[in-house]
């Protein structure tokens, strides 16, 4: 099926379809973690995507199958500390693929596309945060060459 899916950077006309996928994604993750409720409404997300598509430090990749957007992946660059040194770090967040198109290698190919884009922006490391229960995403990221680095802990008081 992957041969029928093309990967490319998003265009303005993809926005509504990306937002629909975002809603599906939020329903999925909110069910699984109380720390990750959908704080951002669909309309706020839409504004963000509009900005990200235009921004130089953000990347929106979409997978398209017969004119339908079947997955998306967001990347952005931040100046961050690594070992107390400030460097450009690439983040990949909010990747989602319609269940029908899961396990087709789409995310791994999307990450490869993002990697090339990050490289051009002098990014040395890409980070992706995954909920600890989300074994599927961890597996996909490992397949794409990611390694576990830190665990994020929370405590309510």
């Amino acid at each position: 099926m992957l041969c029928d899916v093309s990967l490319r950077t998003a265009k303005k006309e993809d926005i509504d379809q990306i937002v629909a996928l975002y809603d599906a994604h939020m329903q999925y993750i909110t069910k699984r973690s109380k720390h990750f409720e959908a704080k951002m409404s669909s309309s706020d997300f839409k504004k963000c995507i509009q900005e990200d598509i235009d921004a130089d430090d953000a990347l929106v990749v979409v997978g398209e199958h017969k004119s339908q957007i079947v997955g998306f992946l967001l990347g952005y660059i931040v100046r961050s500390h690594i070992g107390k040194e400030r460097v450009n770090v690439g983040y990949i967040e909010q990747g989602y693929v319609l269940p029908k198109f899961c396990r087709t290698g789409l995310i791994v190919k999307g990450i490869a596309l993002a990697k090339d884009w990050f490289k051009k922006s002098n990014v040395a490391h890409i980070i992706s945060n995954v909920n600890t229960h989300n074994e599927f995403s961890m597996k996909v990221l490992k397949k794409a060459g990611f390694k576990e680095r830190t665990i994020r802990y929370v405590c309510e008081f």
Partner: protein
Amino acid sequence: MIKIRKATLDDLDTVVSFCVKLTDIHHAFNDYYKPGKDIENSLRETYTQDLMSEEVLILVAEDRGKIIGYFDTAIKYAEKFKSVDAVAYIYDVFILPEYRRKGLLKQFMDIAIKAYKEQGLNVFELRVDVNNKDAMNAWLKMGFQNWQISMVKRIQ
């Protein structure tokens, strides 16, 4: 008698030296944390600003005039996709080896909780390297729960 208090600029040298030790500990886990060439000056600059910031709370523990540990936290505004607006983020904690396992971490936390509750916060957040088993055990003992794993890929 161990006393915990807010750090001041007079503690800058000690806090920086403890942070350098922390960086070395992390570097031993992974080359990813390799310190920059000018780490001491960079830390000095960062902590000078932090010690004067109202959004940063740095505590030090003192035993008979000697600083034996520090606890570095700050208010961190949550990412756009999270359910809370802000968290009390624990950046660094260092306690001299001879003072570990004596309940100092709990004392630091109790003071920080009191301060952050007054500011309307109710969540601590932090990150621990996956190889730092001692730290993981200590935080789990303090009631923390793991939530996310940061996966990293080096591309250059």
